[in-house]
Structures are given as structure tokens and as C-alpha cells.
């Protein structure tokens, strides 16, 4: 396989920010305070020399990466870094071309103090599809948890798979995903996660081939049941949550689209303003008395263009991406909600079954014994009846136990999910609020700058001394 290495400087850049993100990840149930995953603390300086990584021998133990530790020690202390026993990072995308196909892999670095890990440090390479595998496995394992979302499979802007911008965004998204999983009190103990983080390439490939899940998160039969089955004990809360996430995801999608359109218009606007101000400069060359004023107008227009540019520059990072993440997360919540129905359905099905059997028993005890095959064997109707009764009793016993178990399970799932949903609600609220406040802030700054720019033109306009000579002719200022 040939490898063509990506721009190392880029991964160096990324890691500067990512290091900060590592220290302020979210969605751990234990966190009391929400920390914006996108808050960019002033990072530490990094040498790209650390990433002069050439041939990562899979599964090799890397020398203590001082930078990793260094960045962590600079992080938020109140978050209690010492409680984190599993630290992961995704970086260093590399393109691999083989005869059949080419793809990109990312390096996953793990540091842990957990006892169930054989080593304290690992470094492996994984590709996007591997992440998909992991996520599916987590869904199976923890049906009532909200599994963090993966970044989009396809770029909305038809980027090439190997376009560096796209790769960067994907890498950031994957890193976030993995960190959220690692910080999740339940998910981080998943066996599949361990496999993902530690297995060497060939081991991992083998693992993937095994237990190709027949049990999807909502497996085939259950899926059908779920769509057609009307739950008897309709959980109101569940229904309203479902509806809520549906609507939310829709509205957030709308906001995203509107934002994109506005962004496009604003970009064009900047260009047109840059066409505009040179005309004033040109004009000022031919008008003598007015040239000062015209020049200041030209400057004002240019300043407005710059101010607008600042808005459009910030759009992607501070609005579009967080918004999109929230949309993905809402989708993940929807899936979790759907999956939680399974235990509920199971429970109700078994309950139904139990009731049926009980009814049967009733009938048996009270009703006459009709003909049955047993008579062929020469048994008396009495014996047959007792036999049946005994069988039924056993079945009923079993069912009762199952019902209990299922009930217990589904209650537990519900309450777990409740907890996660609450924390998601909280985080989502904060994130969206930040998003919108940021947008308003940017607009305020933009208008402040424009106002300043045009106010600066007033003195020179007033100072135009016409050839009349009377400078007190300045027009009335209605301001």
C-alpha cells in the first residue's frame, strides 16, 4: 500500500485546538457544569515535529506523548481531570491507496489507567467505516442510551473524499464522537469500544467479520412490530418527547438552510461592496472640491465590506457547525427513543402472553375436556386435563418471571434514558443559546462598525468649501 501523508502542519494546527477540546468534553453524566465543546481556550504551542509520524506500527506503544499530557494539565481543573481514566484522541489523517480502493485512516491514540486494559497507551489506525461499526455495536449494546452522532458520511458541498477541508471537519467530528463515548459512564465500558481502541488491524478486521449483527438496534421483527404495534400503556411522556424531537430536528434543519442562504447572499454582498468603493475613488479624481469627501465615502464602503466579511468568516465555525451537530444529536436522541420502545414492547408482549395463558388455564379448569390426541394413548380425560394444567402452570410461572424481568428491564431503560435526555436537553439549550447569542453579537458588531464608518464621512462632507467660499453653508444636520 502506498501512503501519501497529509499535510502534517494541518494536523499540528488541529491538535492545538483539539487538545483544548479534550480537556473540556461534554455529555458525561457526572459533569455538573456544561462546557462548550467548541470553546477554544488559548491553546498551547505545539511542534508539528511530534507528528513526523512516518510508519505507525499498529498497536505499538508510543513513547509518553508529553504534549498530550501537557495539554491536559492546562485544561480546566475544576473538571477534575484526575477522574478521567480514559483519554482518547483522533488525528493524523492519511490516505491509503491500494489497487482496489483508496481510503483515509485516522490515528487513534488512547491513554488509560483502567485495569481492564492491558496497557496504558495504545495507538491504532481506523477508517470512517470502522467508526460506523463501533457506533452500531454501541447501539446494540446500550439500546437505551443516546449514542453520540458521527459526522456526516457525505459532505453537503460535494467535497471530494480526500479534500483537506472535508477531512479536517470529519476528523474533528470523529474526535468529538470518540471523546463523548469515552466520557460516557456507560458507553465507555463497552467491550466493543475496547476492541476498537486496542486491537491491531488484522485482529480488528477479524472481529468485525464475527457476529455480524442480526440484532440491529431495532432488529427486523421488532422493527415491524414497533411500527404496527399500538402500545397499550401509551407512555405520554414518551409520545410527547418523540414529537418534540421530531419537530426540533425539523426546525433546526430549517434554520440551517436559512443560514446557508443568508451566508451566500452576504458573500456576494461583500464582493459587490468591493466593486463599489473603487468607483468613488475614481470619481474623486475628477472632482476637486469634493475629492476629500468622496474618498472618505470610499473608505466607509470598504470598511463596511470588511465588517461584513468578518461576519461571513465566522459563520461556519460558530454557527453552521454547532447547529449541524445539534441536528445530528437530535437524530441520535430520536433513535434512542425508538430503541427504548423495544423493552417496552417486549414487556407488553409477554404480559399479553401471560394473560392469554391464564385465560387458557381458566378455561381448562372450568370447561369440559374435549377430545384430544391423548385419548389415542388411552389416557383418561382426567389425566389429560391434569397434564395440560401442569404444563400450563409451568409456562405461566415462566411467563410471570419473564414479565417481571421485562418490566424491570424496561423500567430501568426508561429511567436511564430519562436521565440522558435531561442532560441532553440542558446541553442542547445552552449550545443553541450560545449559537444565537453569537449570531446576534456578530450582527451588533457589524452594525457598529458600519455606523462608525459612515459617521466618519460626515466631517469631510461638511467641510466641502464650495467655490462660493462660504463654508457655513453646510447642510442642516438632522441627527
Amino acid at each position, binding site marked *: 500500500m502506498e501512503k501519501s501523508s497529509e499535510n502534517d502542519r494541518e494536523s499540528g494546527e488541529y491538535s492545538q485546538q483539539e487538545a483544548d477540546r479534550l480537556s473540556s468534553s461534554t455529555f458525561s453524566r457526572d459533569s455538573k457544569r456544561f462546557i462548550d465543546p467548541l470553546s477554544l481556550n488559548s491553546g498551547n504551542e505545539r511542534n508539528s515535529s511530534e507528528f513526523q509520524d512516518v510508519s505507525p506500527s499498529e498497536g505499538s506503544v508510543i513513547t509518553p506523548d508529553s504534549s498530550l499530557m501537557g495539554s491536559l494539565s492546562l485544561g480546566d481543573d475544576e473538571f477534575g481531570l484526575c477522574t478521567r481514566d480514559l483519554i482518547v484522541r483522533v488525528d493524523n489523517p492519511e490516505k491509503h491507496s491500494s489497487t482496489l480502493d483508496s481510503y483515509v485512516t485516522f490515528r487513534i491514540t488512547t491513554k488509560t489507567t483502567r485495569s481492564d486494559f492491558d496497557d496504558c497507551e495504545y495507538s491504532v489506525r481506523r477508517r470512517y467505516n470502522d467508526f460506523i461499526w463501533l457506533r452500531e455495536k454501541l447501539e446494540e449494546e446500550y439500546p437505551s442510551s443516546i449514542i453520540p452522532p458521527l459526522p456526516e458520511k457525505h459532505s453537503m458541498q460535494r467535497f471530494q473524499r480526500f479534500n483537506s477541508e472535508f477531512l479536517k471537519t470529519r476528523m474533528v467530528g470523529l474526535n468529538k464522537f470518540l471523546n463523548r463515548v469515552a466520557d460516557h459512564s456507560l458507553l465507555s465500558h463497552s467491550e466493543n469500544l475496547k476492541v476498537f481502541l486496542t486491537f491491531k488491524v488484522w485482529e480488528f478486521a477479524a472481529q468485525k467479520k464475527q457476529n455480524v449483527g442480526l440484532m440491529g438496534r431495532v432488529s427486523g421483527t421488532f422493527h415491524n412490530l414497533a411500527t404496527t404495534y399500538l402500545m397499550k400503556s401509551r407512555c405520554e411522556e414518551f409520545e410527547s418527547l418523540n414529537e418534540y424531537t421530531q419537530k426540533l430536528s425539523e426546525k433546526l434543519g430549517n434554520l440551517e438552510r436559512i443560514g446557508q442562504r443568508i451566508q451566500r447572499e452576504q458573500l456576494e454582498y461583500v464582493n459587490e461592496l468591493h466593486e463599489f468603493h473603487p468607483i468613488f475613488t475614481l470619481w474623486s479624481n475628477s472632482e476637486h472640491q469634493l475629492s476629500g469627501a468622496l474618498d472618505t465615502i470610499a473608505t466607509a464602503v470598504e470598511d463596511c465590506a470588511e465588517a461584513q466579511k468578518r461576519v461571513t468568516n465566522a459563520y461556519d465555525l460558530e454557527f453552521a457547525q454547532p447547529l449541524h451537530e445539534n441536528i445530528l444529536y437530535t437524530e441520535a436522541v430520536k433513535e434512542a427513543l425508538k430503541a427504548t420502545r423495544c423493552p417496552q414492547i417486549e414487556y407488553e408482549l409477554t404480559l399479553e402472553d401471560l394473560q392469554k395463558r391464564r385465560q387458557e388455564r381458566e378455561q381448562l379448569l372450568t370447561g369440559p375436556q374435549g377430545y384430544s390426541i391423548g385419548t389415542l394413548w388411552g389416557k383418561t380425560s382426567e389425566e389429560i386435563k391434569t397434564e395440560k394444567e401442569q404444563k400450563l402452570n409451568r409456562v405461566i410461572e415462566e411467563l410471570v418471571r419473564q414479565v417481571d424481568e421485562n418490566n424491570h428491564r424496561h423500567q430501568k431503560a426508561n429511567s436511564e434514558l430519562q436521565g440522558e435526555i435531561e442532560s441532553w436537553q440542558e446541553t442542547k439549550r445552552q449550545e443553541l443559546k450560545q449559537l444565537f447569542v453569537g449570531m446576534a453579537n456578530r450582527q451588533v458588531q457589524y452594525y457598529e462598525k458600519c455606523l462608525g464608518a459612515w459617521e466618519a464621512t460626515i466631517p469631510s462632507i461638511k467641510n466641502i468649501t464650495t*467655490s462660493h467660499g462660504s463654508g457655513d453653508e453646510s447642510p442642516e444636520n438632522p441627527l
Partner: protein
Amino acid sequence: MTDQTFENINTALDAVENPMMNYNFKSPLLSSVDISIPVFEKRVGETSASAMIPTDGFVAYQIITVTKSKPKNSGFELNAYDDDEGQSCTLEKQWVVWRRYRNFELLRGHLEATYPYIIIPPLPEKSFSYGWQKVSSEKLSSDFLERRRVSLIRFLHHVAEHPVLSNDKTFLAFLQNENWMNTTKNMDAFGKASQTLRSLHASYRLKMPDRFFEETKCFADGNHSVISSLLHVRTKIAGREFGIHKLHANYGRVFREMSSFQNTASEEFQTVARYMDIYAAGIDTMLEEEENIIDKMKEYMTYMEAVRNVCCQQELIQFQYEQLESSIHSKESQRKQISTGDHTSSIFLLIGRSTMNQDNKLQALDRDIQQLETQMQLLIGENKSFKQKAQEDIKRFHQQKEHFLQEAMFGLAVHRIQTYRKNLALWLKLQECFSKIQ
């Protein structure tokens, strides 16, 4: 404009106190009257000249000319042309007439033809358009008519404050009575004017172009193209600003929808939606108001055309002069040839002209040369007076334009500032709103 009025009134008042002081009776009309176009009306017209075109509606503008209240015995007279009764003007007199756009065009054509050395104020365009709105602006929509009304007033004011133009009989008649068109032979001047204009666009190669007019023409052309591109880009920008604002109304809609199911921030979202709607709606008035300033730019641009015309007129005269010059030269050289009996002109010998014919020839040539020289003298005189008057008017124009443009720029800056202030306040409120979300 206003200051000139004051200036004139002051001069007049001075004259009252010091009757010995010489003052110019022919002060511009605008100092003694107020001209306004308060209303316009849509009317159904008479059948137009060509029977093919059915009776169509047109718009008539009402022009009211009112004398300004002035102290008695100011010595002012409303200029020569009184109304039919021959009454001399009393103090408070008012004339009301109705004119349509076509009449204005004819008037302007007359002025152009009669005063080629004067920069004639421009009329509003035949059709406006809001470039960014895809609304098909019919010729007779009320916004369009309103803008035209304002521009027509400006036209009348410009003419009325011009020291030369305001004394024009046709113009005065235009303001006062119905048979104004009879006052001039230049009524097909409209046709003439456009003809001359076309010929003016052809450039002449002058041997000795006048420096001042060359420069002025360059100035006019340069400015014209600069402003035309300014207007073009500005239209794009206006469209863009329009789009951006209107898109925010979509935000409003979504926030409103969200407020219905997002219980924790329902009120805030509602307020946000309201503000977004205000933001989106604000662009309409903003752009409309800015159009008024843009109209001034257009006017300035059209003025450049008028300036160019004057320069071209001068070139025409110069060209004619140079043509005459060269004719005279050639005739003189012909004369020389004949009188010195140039043997190279063997044609004459061949045909066997007698000296008698030669004399006739000489006489004819002499007459021609005489004629041409008289013409030339006239032309030189014409050129001189033209140049003098035109230069004066151009200087006047430069002075006026500075004030005019200063006003326009000031208006633009003030308007922008007001708009930005409004928008800033809006977004500050939005900022507050968003921060209040729990």
C-alpha cells in the same frame, strides 16, 4: 438654491434702500415666485396624432406658481410676459396650469435649441425602475409618478433660478397659460434637438480645439461613465441588501414555530420572531428613501450629458469656422493660380479661355471669398460670444454642483447612519432576547 434666493432678495431690499445702486432687474424668477407641483391626475387623452394608437391615459401635473410675499415697492416686476389681460402683477398672484410629461419635453427641446451655450437642466427619465425588484413597474404606478413629480419640480426650479433661462418667454408662458406653444418657432425643436444631438455625437477633428471645452467635455464624459457604473453597482447592492433582510423573515417564521413547542423559551422566541419581522420589513422603506438620493445622482449624470452637449455645440461652431477657413484658403489659392497665370493649369489654355473669362473667374472667386470672409467674421463673433456665455454658465454649473453634490452625499451618509442605527438597536434587542433564554 435657498441661499441664492436670499441673496437676491437682499439685493432687492438693498436696492429699495439705496435706489442709486444698480441692480439687475433680470434676477432669476425663483426669487420672486414659488413653483410647486402639488398634485397629478390621471386623465384620458384626446386621440393622438396617429389614429392607430387608441386613446390612452396620460398623467397631467398641476403646476402652481405663486408670487412670494414681498414688501411693497420692492421694485420687482414679474418679467415681461404678463397674462392676456395685460394686467401688471399685483402682489399675491397665482397661476395654475396643467401639463403633461410631453409638454415638459417640448419645453426642454425649445430651451436646448434656443440656448445652445447653456447647460439645460435635465428632465426625469421616461421610465424608472427599481432595479432589484422584479415588480414590473408600469409606467403609471403611483410610486413612479411620485418620483417623477419630484423630479419635474426640480427641473422647473433649476430653470427658474437660472439667470438666463428664467427669462425665456416660452418658459414663462409655460407656467402661466395655455397657448405657450405659440410663443416659439422652435416647437418642432424637439425633433431638431434630437437631430443635432445625434450629429453631435460624431466627433470632429478640430485643428485647434479649445482647451477649456476639451477639458470640460472630458470631465463630463468621465463623470458620466463613473456615475453610470456607480448606479449600476448600487442596484446590485440594493438587491443584495433586500435579499439578506427578507431572508431573515424566514428566521422569524421558524422561531415562531419553535416557540409553540419549545416551552422553556416560548416567549423569547416569540419576541425574536417579532424583531426578525421588523428587520426584514425595514429594508423596504430604507431602499425607497435611498432612491430619492439616487435620483439626484441620476440627475447629476444627466447634467453631464447637457454639459457635453454644450461642449459639442462649441465644437460644431469651431468646426464650421475651420471649414470656412479651409474653403477660403482653397479659394484664395485658386485665385492666385488664375491671377498669376499659372501655366500648369493648362486646361484653360486648351479650352482656349480668353482673358475675359479669366477676369470673370477672378471676380467670381473674389465674390466668393468676400462672402466667405463675411461669414467667417460672423462665425468668429458667434464663437466668441458662445464661448463667453458658455464658459460663464459652466462656471456657474461647477459652483452649483458642488453644493448639490454635497447635499446629496450628506443625504446619503445621514440616511445610512440612520438606517444602521435602527438596525443596531434591533440587533441589540435580539441579543438581549437570546441571552434571556434559559
